[in-house]
């Protein structure tokens, strides 16, 4: 399999293989496999409760998947198989596939350190901090310092570098005018933007966006689309996003995965997805329920 | 609303400051000498501290003035509550120093006495320990004196008593964890008892413990003939109660702390044998006793502090004697200045209700007798059993 990958024309940044997440008796993500090639914008869509955010959480280390493998830059990053009680309860497939190799279950901060940054569906900014500090804290991870040099100011140069970089990042995002405001006092659109800026401050290779356009009006959504494209070019990013705004998804995605009830129902370029009957059914079915 | 509350709080603070300043500014025609009372008026040793303070109050009531070199001084008692706790002792002691006390009496409970000692030492104020029996109180402290016997003495006396009178072979010792008085006395008792060939089992209970049944049952299963429990009254009451209801049937032996009407109250009408060693046996001085009883009965607050009746605790007697010892020291010094009193202290002698008082080179009273009393549970009084010495 890895030989195939090497042969393929574009290198995969993220490779998700047979990931299953089961909570008690509920299978939230079922045998999900996907590939995210470098410098592309890939979207994961699906009706409400389809398991999109859970998939994100499995990739970023918030949850330990029940079964499956996630590789980042060609190296295994997360690997798991059912253990303990789950051995009996497990409802997914490929239960035996990863048993021999042991479990890799890094905490989210380790994954971020590897180069995956994310934003949250329900914005999670640090509410008592200013816009500037919000971004500055994200620089903490890569700062060359220890607690002594930081406390006794032995690293003035490093601190200045962090501040300068933060400032230029804010200027790029057009947030420099509000840098001393409390993060939570910003309008919604800017908060989203700040979250992205904060994620960018960790110098990621792959950016996961969890519903970045939620709650935005069409005007803002359009701006966001441009913005995502812009940062992809600028930072040589790969972007993986969950989104409900179909026009946004269709406009910027290079490739789309569709899941429903935890399982993949379709994948393809935007045009294919738009015309896929199963996708339409899944979405309309939800609409009927509501 | 909020502003009003904030304003009220600020005002209160201001008032408090006024009151602080005020206490210094007071003046009288007759000169006043202040005697500091360093006692636990709350906390675990609150009852004992209050009874000790009662003796001083009564003495002050009887003799409110002192004549020194022809000048008559009003004697004012200035109490400071050390809350039975070491960490409050320092500031409580400081209030006395700052309040201008010439001499200080106290404290009930040796560990607070030790904790407050340094503050008095720095200020050069002489302190007269009333019932703090731990040797460490006076040891190495030139300013600390005491009018009662010491734990090594008391421990030996009690061990002798347990051996000679109660014919015990095994003794179960129960003391509070972290209490110097309990642990000290148990230690000396143990030394003496083991010297007499008795077997000693020790146990500790934690602070605020209320359930002694398992300890008492342990004592019984370990085959002890006597339970020695020199703890503070708060726990003593519980031990007496639970010993009676559990039907333990072993005599309880204790030190001076148990000499209290609270213990009698707890033991009343129950089948328990309680022996205590103490500084004073009732009936020693009828005049004094009738006087203080009358005072107690006429002063409702004093009576409440005494536990609601007019039984006289040994610590009250000691408090009474301490007051007069302090007056004697002032007369001897011919001055109310703390330094003069301190200089005169070692030579002070006084014959009080509890016997004659003189200090040895360490500052301890020279005493060679203790009284052993037994609780009479039907009449609710202490029966005098024996005068016990070391030999």
């Amino acid at each position, binding site marked *: 399999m890895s030989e195939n990958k090497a042969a393929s024309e574009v290198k995969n940044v993220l490779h998700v293989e047979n990931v299953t997440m089961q*909570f008690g008796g509920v299978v939230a993500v079922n045998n999900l496999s996907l590939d995210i090639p470098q410098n592309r914008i890939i979207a994961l869509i699906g009706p409400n409760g389809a398991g999109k*955010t859970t998939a994100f*959480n499995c990739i970023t280390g*918030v949850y330990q998947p029940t079964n499956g493998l996630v590789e980042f830059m060609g190296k295994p990053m997360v690997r798991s198989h059912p253990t303990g009680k789950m051995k009996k309860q497990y409802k997914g497939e490929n239960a035996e596939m990863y048993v021999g190799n042991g479990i890799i279950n890094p905490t989210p901060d380790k994954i971020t350190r590897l180069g995956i940054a994310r934003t*949250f569906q329900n914005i999670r900014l640090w509410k008592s901090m200013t816009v500037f500090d919000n971004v500055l804290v994200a620089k903490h991870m890569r700062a060359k310092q220890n607690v002594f040099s930081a406390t006794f100011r032995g690293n003035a140069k490093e601190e200045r570098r962090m501040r300068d970089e933060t400032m230029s990042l804010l200027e790029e995002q057009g947030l420099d005018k509000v840098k001393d405001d409390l993060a939570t006092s910003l309008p919604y659109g800017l908060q989203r933007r700040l979250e992205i800026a904060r994620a960018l401050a960790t110098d990621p290779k792959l950016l996961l966006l969890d519903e970045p356009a939620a709650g935005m009006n069409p005007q803002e959504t359009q701006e966001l689309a441009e913005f995502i494209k812009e940062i992809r070019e600028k930072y040589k990013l790969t972007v993986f996003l969950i989104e409900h705004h179909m026009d946004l998804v269709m406009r910027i995605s290079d490739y789309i995965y569709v899941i429903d009830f935890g399982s993949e129902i379709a994948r393809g370029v935007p045009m294919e997805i738009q015309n896929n009957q199963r996708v339409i059914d899944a979405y309309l079915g939800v609409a009927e329920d509501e | 609303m909020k502003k009003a509350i904030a304003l009220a709080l600020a005002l209160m603070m201001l008032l408090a400051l006024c009151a602080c300043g005020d206490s210094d500014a007071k003046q009288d025609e007759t000169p006043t000498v202040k005697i500091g009372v360093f006692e636990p*008026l*709350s*906390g675990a040793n*609150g*009852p004992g501290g*209050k009874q000790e303070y009662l003796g001083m109050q009564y003495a002050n009531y009887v003799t409110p003035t002192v004549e020194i070199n022809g000048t008559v001084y009003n004697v004012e008692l200035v109490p400071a509550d050390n809350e039975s706790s070491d960490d409050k002792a320092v500031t409580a002691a400081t209030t006395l120093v700052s309040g201008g006390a010439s001499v200080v009496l106290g404290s009930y409970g040796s560990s607070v006495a030790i904790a407050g000692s340094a503050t008095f030492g720095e200020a050069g104020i002489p302190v007269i320990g009333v019932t703090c029996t731990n040797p460490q109180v006076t040891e190495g402290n030139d300013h600390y004196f005491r009018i009662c016997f010491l734990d090594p003495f008391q421990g030996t006396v009690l061990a002798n008593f347990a051996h000679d009178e109660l014919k015990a072979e095994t003794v179960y010792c129960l003391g509070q*964890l972290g209490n110097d008085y309990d642990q000290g006395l148990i230690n000396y008792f143990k030394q003496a008892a083991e010297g007499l060939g008795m077997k000693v089992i020790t*146990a*500790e*209970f*934690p602070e*605020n*413990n*209320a*359930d002694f*049944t*398992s*300890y008492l*049952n*342990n004592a019984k*299963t370990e085959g002890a003939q006597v339970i020695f429990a020199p703890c503070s*009254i*708060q726990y003593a*009451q*519980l031990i007496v*109660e*639970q010993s009676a*209801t*559990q*039907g333990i049937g072993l005599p309880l032996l204790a030190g001076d702390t148990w000499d209290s009407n*609270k213990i009698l*109250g*707890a033991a009343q009408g129950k089948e328990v044998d309680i022996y205590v060693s103490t500084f004073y046996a009732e009936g020693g001085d009828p005049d004094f006793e009738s006087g203080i009883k009358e005072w107690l009965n006429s002063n409702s607050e004093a009576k*409440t*502090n005494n*536990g609601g009746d007019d039984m006289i605790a040994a610590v009250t007697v000691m408090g009474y004697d301490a007051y007069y010892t302090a007056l004697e020291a002032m007369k001897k010094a011919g001055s109310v200045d703390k330094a003069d009193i301190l200089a005169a202290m070692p030579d002070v002698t006084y014959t009080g209700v509890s016997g004659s008082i003189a200090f040895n080179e360490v500052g301890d009273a020279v005493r060679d007798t203790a009284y052993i009393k037994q609780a009479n549970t039907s009449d609710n009084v202490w029966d005098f059993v024996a005068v016990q010495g070391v030999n």
Partner: protein
Amino acid sequence: MSGFLNAYLPHILTGISVGGQYALIAIGYTMVYGILRLINFAHGDVFMVAGLVMVYATASMPMYISIPLVIIATVLLGFVIERVAYKPLRSAPRMSVMISAIGVSYLLQNCALYFTGGLPQTYPVIPFISDSVTVFGQTTKMVTLITPVLTLLLVVILSLLIKYTKMGMAMRAVSKDFETSQLMGIKINSVISFTFIIGCFLAAVGSLLYFTNYQSVIPTSGAMPGLKAFVAAVFGGIGSIPGAVIGAFIIGICENLIKGAGWTTFSDAFTFVLLIVILLAKPTGIFGEKATDKV
């Protein structure tokens, strides 16, 4: 085995009795925590105040008036504490409410100190339950036998109440989801008040039993039983009533066995060792439900 029983029977008996009394207090903790997510540090002191009220009430009134009076006064106290000290802070951070609880505990202790003048108060003798009885050759108080029975009886009644009455249903709903139940038209304030009332009622009963055993009330009497009852509640899985009861019995018995084994220095510490071990092994206690944070 019989040797062990003989040596340890008194400790086990005491343990069961103490455990029952802890259980009655622990229920108050666990119910309040279940609904408000608040460690009600003042609960132990409410228990102490119930003891003091009894002391003062019997001084001037006969027993058959005093006992109901104590229960009513305690319930009232719990109600007032909730209304005055916790209700205004409903939307405040949880830490503020917890600190308010510590403040109330401080206030109750200091008031008790002021009124008693720091003197221990002797608890009145309640007829019948104070009588001595002999069980398996061990003399003990009637209360030792009554406590576990009464505790279990009250717990059963309480469980039925929670399961079958409308108020009980509301309580369960509120403890599952505070906000949603509010939206569903449950009168949250009356549910919370009711919870405090039940908690305090049980604490009052617990205090009658506990102080009948130990006979003396001081301002800090409530602190240790309160803390241990709380540990019991955590041990059993906070929010779960059967958990609290079982936890309380386990702690009561273990503590007394430890004392019986001669490790008296560590009898209190042991409770907390047990607590830390259970928290590490199963943070939500024996019967606690696992909660997953939504991200």
